[in-house]
Each structure stands twice: as C-alpha cells, then as structure tokens.
C-alpha cells in the first residue's frame, strides 16, 4: 500500500454538473459543455486557462478528443480514463496527482455518460471481452450477491434495503438536478417488481445521462480563485484481482476493494474513526444492497450492527452521519463516468453551504465520496474538506 500523501496539496475551486436524467434533447457534447462552463464560471476562469484535462467515461466516448472536440481545447494534454464506475473519480485522482507533482497549476477533470442513446435497458455487463466468463450476470445480480450472507447471518431483510431506497428518494426529492425528484413509500418499494432478487425496481439506480466537472488547482494559489474552496485530503483506487463469483472463499459479507480503498484514504487523512470524523458521505448506491455493504466496508458500522443502524436512521439527513444527501445514484442517477465527480460536486456545494433547505447538512467540513464498479472489483474513495 502507498506510503505517500496527497493531503492539502490540491484544491477544487470550481465545479459544474448538468441536470441528470433522460436528457433526450442533449447530446454528450451538449452535456460536456454545460458541465465544463458551469465549472469554469464557478472558478472565475476561462477554458483557455486550463493547462491539462482528464475525462472519465466508460462507454459513451473514447480518448481525449471526446473532450477536446466539444470544448475546443486546443493544444493541451487530455487523457481519457476508464475504471468502470470509478471512472469519474479516476479523472479527479489523476488530475490531482498532476497538480500535486507540480506539473500543472490549473486542470480540468470531467466525467460524462450518455446512456440513453444506446437503446439498452440498464448498464452493460461488466466483462465485455469474454464470450463465456461472467455469462449470465447483470449488475443487479452481481451487486445483490451479498444478500444471502446479510439475510442469513446479520438479520437484514428486504425491508432493510427498502428503507435505504426510501431515504435516498426522499433526499433526491429535494434536489433540482436529480434524475428522480420524488419520494417513495416503504410499501411502494416493497411491492415493486423484482429486477434481480432481492432487488426490486426501487432498489436499483436508473439509467441516466449526465456530466460533471471540477477545476483543480494547486493549493498554493487556491485563494486566488475563491475563499470557500475545498481541498483534496485523500484519494485511493483499489482493484481486486478476480471476479468475486470466481474468488475462492469469498464470503459475500464485504467488497474488499472498498475496505482497502477506504483504509488507504483514511491513512492519508490520519482518520481513525470515520463515523465520528466525517460530516457527510456520498457513497455508491447503485443498488440498495451496495449501500448496505458499503456502510460496513467504509467502517461506519459492523455487519452485525448494520440493520439497527438503518432502522434507527443513522444515515438519514438528520441522522448521525448523512449518507447520500444528494439522493445518491438511486435518485440522482448514475451516468457512470460522471457519478464520481457528481458526488464531489455535492460535497463541495454542501461544504460551501449552497445546498440550502432541509437537504443542507450544517457545518459540513469533511466529506467522503465512494465508487464501486465492475463485478464488482474496483473501488475508489476521495476525501475532501475545507481548510
């Protein structure tokens, strides 16, 4: 594991995010332009000030040209990064490293996905190169895998999962950029058609279009742009070396990549008690089951405690530590490459106190964003905070 540290070397001074949803009338380029311009205007700069860029996208585009072409970014290095659902955070992570090493002072990280043009239902399968291995799998089937362990050993029920959907829909109902802005009842969630047992329609995030962008600068010049910038405190990406369905002895009580990514990020921050030290969390709730497992994997509670934590509202807006105050992937939507940056966008707006209303988390100064992708095998964690 890494020994280095990125803490307080890189700041975010501008962010942008499109409305997430079924953006039938917007192309990928339209969304890239919307997100990028909101971010540069927020930072008080122009596109020509950007010295380098990273773009996270999984299936809607390729190469740096997907950014250069719409934004007309002439003559600068642009790199496309792809790491399943962690692609957006990868753009931020790699952009941050470039600034931290002193190569650039002002860079753009942008993530986007245009899923609704494909005509397909749901996200693609995870292994797109193999005619046999992984066959029969779907994202809800794979991510629902831990249900047997949690239902049998930890007292979790379908209703526990449903409560997570209710929470995230409620939060999203107050978020004007969310895909779904509608609260749902426990009964609605419980009675919804099954997609992949035990996950029903409301346990699954939607198929969404969207883009999000961040302007990263060297901390040394951050104050030149604004006073309420946020700093990158820790970044990590961890990749497991075998599809979980083929992993000997895997017990489905955890996704190890998340555990390791969190450990690595906490080390950089010097964090020992995340549940106490963090003010809010945006985590990868592609499915309610994933959110449940991730509570444990981020060290917020033990598997034995997770049902009680959900039942007692620990992760609700007014709870001990709000999780997915934005509405999460569940309600905000999950345009794969955009999601990781969208999460940081939400943390940024929360810390700046710009969310307002019931959804505003008071005095938030330290937040965590988490993604989990693949079968799943890839997890990323970014911790951001005010000075």
């Amino acid at each position, binding site marked *: 594991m890494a020994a280095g540290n990125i803490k307080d070397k890189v700041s975010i001074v501008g962010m942008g995010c499109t409305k997430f949803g079924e953006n039938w009338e917007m192309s990928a380029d339209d969304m890239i332009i919307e997100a990028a311009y909101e971010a540069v205007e927020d930072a008080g700069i122009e596109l020509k000030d950007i010295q380098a860029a990273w773009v996270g996208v999984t299936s809607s585009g390729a190469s740096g040209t997907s950014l250069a072409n719409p934004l007309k970014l002439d003559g600068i290095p642009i790199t496309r990064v792809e790491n399943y659902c962690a692609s957006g955070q990868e753009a931020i992570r790699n952009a941050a490293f470039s600034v931290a090493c002193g190569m650039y002072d002002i860079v753009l990280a942008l993530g986007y996905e245009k899923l609704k043009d494909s005509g397909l239902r749901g996200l693609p*399968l995870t292994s797109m190169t*193999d005619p046999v291995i992984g066959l029969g799998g779907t994202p809800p089937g794979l991510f629902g895998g*831990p249900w047997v362990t949690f239902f049998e050993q930890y007292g979790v029920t379908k209703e526990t999962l449903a409560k997570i959907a209710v929470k995230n829909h409620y939060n999203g109902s107050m978020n004007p950029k969310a895909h779904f802005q509608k609260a749902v009842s426990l009964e609605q969630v419980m009675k919804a058609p099954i997609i*992949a047992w035990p996950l029903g329609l409301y346990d699954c995030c939607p198929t969404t279009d969207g883009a999000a962008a961040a302007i990263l600068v060297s901390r040394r010049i951050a104050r030149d742009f604004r006073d309420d910038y946020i700093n990158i405190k820790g970044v990590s990406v961890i990749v497991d070396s075998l599809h979980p*369905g083929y992993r000997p*002895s895997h017990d489905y009580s955890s996704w190890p990549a998340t555990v390791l990514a969190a450990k690595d990020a906490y080390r950089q921050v010097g964090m020992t008690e995340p549940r106490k030290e963090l003010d809010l969390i945006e985590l990868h709730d592609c499915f309610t089951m994933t959110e449940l497992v991730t509570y444990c994997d981020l060290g917020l509670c033990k598997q034995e405690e997770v049902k009680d934590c959900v039942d007692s509202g620990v992760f609700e807006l007014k709870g001990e530590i709000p999780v997915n105050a934005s509405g999460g992937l569940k309600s905000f939507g999950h345009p794969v490459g955009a999601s990781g940056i969208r999460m940081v966008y939400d943390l940024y707006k929360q810390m700046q106190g710009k969310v307002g209303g019931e959804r505003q988390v008071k005095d938030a100064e330290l937040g965590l964003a988490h993604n989990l992708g693949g079968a799943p095998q890839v997890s990323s964690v970014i911790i951001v905070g005010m000075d």
Partner: protein
Amino acid sequence: MIGIKSWGIYIPTYRLSRKEIARAMGGAHLGGEKAVANFDEDSITMGAEAVRNTIDGIDASEIDALFFAATTAPYREKQSASTVALAADLEEDVFFSDFSGSIRAGVIALSLAMDRVQSGSSENVIVTASDCRMGTGGSEVEQTFGDGAAAFLVGKEDVIAEFIGQYSISDDFIDVWRTSEDKFVRSWEDRFIKTQGYSKNMARVIKGLLDKYHLAPSDFQKIVIPAPDPGSLKGLSKTLGLDMKTQVQEPLLNTVGDTGTAHPLLMLAASIEEASPGDKILFAAYGDGAQAFVISVTDRVKKGPRKIVKDCLDSGMPLASYVQYLKFKNLIPTEAARRPTYPSSVPYMWRERNYFTRFHGSKCFSCGAEQYPRQRICYVCKSKDNFQEIKLAPKKGKVITYTKDYLFPSPVPPHMQAVVELEGGCRVYMMMTDVNPDEVKNHMPVEMVFRMLHDRSDFYHYGWKCRPAR
C-alpha cells in the same frame, strides 16, 4: 467376446403432457407425456450427457473412438462428435464420426462400432444417439415425438451384453423425411408408411435374423422393437407371434415419446437394465430398411450401472404450458432483449477449449487452491505457472449465493444465476438450468451439466451450467 461394457441415457428434465398439447392445438390427445429438451439443450448436449453417464467411473483415456448419431445435429456442416468428445473430456487422439440421415443412424453406428472393435482398429468405442425432432403444430408426431439420448460403450472385455449376430436389409422407402430446408418432419399417408414401410421391413428383418441364426421367438427373454406408435408394435408382435406381456419391451412412448435416432438405444438400455444373466435379447430397429441383433446378457449385468432409465423417468418436471414448449423450441418470435450482446470469437472459444468445453480448472501446486477460469498466477499465493489442470465437470457443488434475475434475457424468466463452490473449493459464477426458481436455496447441492450457452455470431457456444443435484 464383443459387446456392451456400459450404457448411459439422458432424458431431459421437462415433460409436456399430451393433454396440454391437445388443449392448445385442438384435436384428440394420445395420452401420456413427452420429454422436452430445455431451451439450452440440443442433440449435442443431450448426446454429451448420455456419454458422460456411460463413462462415469471409467477411465476416459481407454476410449479411442466416438460415434455420434442424430437427425437433428445443430450444424449441417461441422461435426458434432468432436464437440461431444470434448464435452466428455475424451483424449485428443480419439477417432470420431457423425452419423445421420435416418432414425436408424444410432443403430448403424452401433453395428459399425462392433465392426471396429472386431477389426481391432479400436479397443473401446462409445456410440451415442440423440434427437430432438419436431412435428408441426397439431400433427400426430408433435404429440408422439420426444427428446432424449442414449449411449453405449462397445468393447471386447468385461462385457455386460454380448453381440451374437446381426442381420440387415435395405429399403429406399420415403416414409418420414426432412429436406435440407425443413424444420419439421414430413411424412406420407400413415396407412401406407406403417403397413408397407415399418411393418413389412421389421417383420422381414426379424424373420431373416431368426432364420440366419436358427432361432425362434421363444428363444428370447426380451424383444426390443421401437415403434412409431403402440398399434404398430401390437400388430408386428401378432404377426411374429411375440408375447406382448412377457417378452416385448415397453416402448417408452407414454413417458418419453419417440426419440428418433436415440429411441432403439434408449429401449435397449431399459431392457438390459432389467435383464438377468443369460437372457437373450432380440433387438431390431427401423429406418430405410431395418436391422436386427441377437444379444446375450452376461453375469456382469448384476454389476451394471444403477437403474438409470428409471431414475431419469422419475426425475421429470412438468412443463407449465404449451406456450413454454414453443419458447423452448424457439417457435415464437420474441422481442430481442434490450441488453448488450455478448462478444463471441471462434479463436477465443478454440484457444480456451480445455476450460470452456472440457471444463478444466487450475489447481495451484504451491497452495492447493482450485480456481476457474484458468489462471497463470495464483489468486491466493501468487505463484506463477505452477498449476495442475483439473477436471471440474464431475465435481458436485453447492450454491454460495444466487439471484432470480429478470433483467438477463431468458425464454423463461427469471434467469437463475449462482455462485457455486465445487468440491475442492473452486468457485464458478454460472447459470442454473432445469430449475424451478422457487426450489433454489442457499447451500443447495448442484451438479454440472453441458449446455448450449448462446448462439451469438450464428454459431453455437457450448459450455457448462449447474442444476439441482439429481
């Protein structure tokens, strides 16, 4: 002494009642039920399962030839026997061939297997016959045809039943046929084909056999005669003076249906299974002429395989409806799933044939961890290129976790997907088949079965699924 060393059969799990066919299509029903191949089964997969059953407990390296007979081989150009040989994990130097063109093809293959052993060019030849023929909706054969496979291992030593002699006749008779364009079986008017085709040829060949070996019907304890329908069998028995009650083998028409090429072998297996040492069997089969055999059961019959025909008959599951049958047979155009298609690649399937088709895994010499798909670096201890190739297909497994998935395209949703742990600890993420979704439980025992996985790029991708252990 040349004869049968082992046998195996395969009857698909699903059964469709003839009453349900008549309910859907109108007309009278003929009673009983028929075995129906699942949507992921075809004559290759059923033939492979029959071979696997036959060689269970036998060293596969002793088998040096494989014959595959079917009138419903999935490819018009490309051998099926080669795929069956891989699925059964036979050696690379096995001699193989396909037999086709007649429902007698399985019996012809069996007689040529005897010749091959007799001539000394092979020691042990495995013959499998498999069919899944279809009749048009509302036809009599739609009700009578069933799906299934049977296999026999022919060799010289330790035989359970010895081949004493045979007689065959040829008759270029157009009774039942499919042109190269036909999906469904065609036939001429039934009085003509039954009286002038089946009955005449069978009577002639059986009389010829008896004359040739100076035997009488009363010399046989068992008489195995496949027939297209019970009436034809009754008529033939009367003509030949056979005792329907004590001698003539029950034709499996009410439980399995007429399985075409497989049927003579299936009935022979059922008859040997019930035989006593010293029993003589008269075995005959029809198709473009006819062929008949004298078979003598040895003392080894007592050590023969388990009662596999009875076990297969007992483990059927009812097919919910005629519509489900149409879906299994791909006879209803269905909406293409709004899901990404899987990649397919001939070089990929060929390169990984030991892992995809033979279903081998990797066992680490250093730490002992068994892994799939093939690894070069151990997931557990990281040692490199230090693996033994192990056979996974014979292993029993248990379900670690599973889902009922309505998103993955299946002709009969929900698609059942499981993580399975095989004996030895190998984990495989695999599709379940022949399964009632409500019967799946965590930790339930499963067995490995060879199935058609998909036909993207218009060729068939075969591989392995699991099903509840039988």
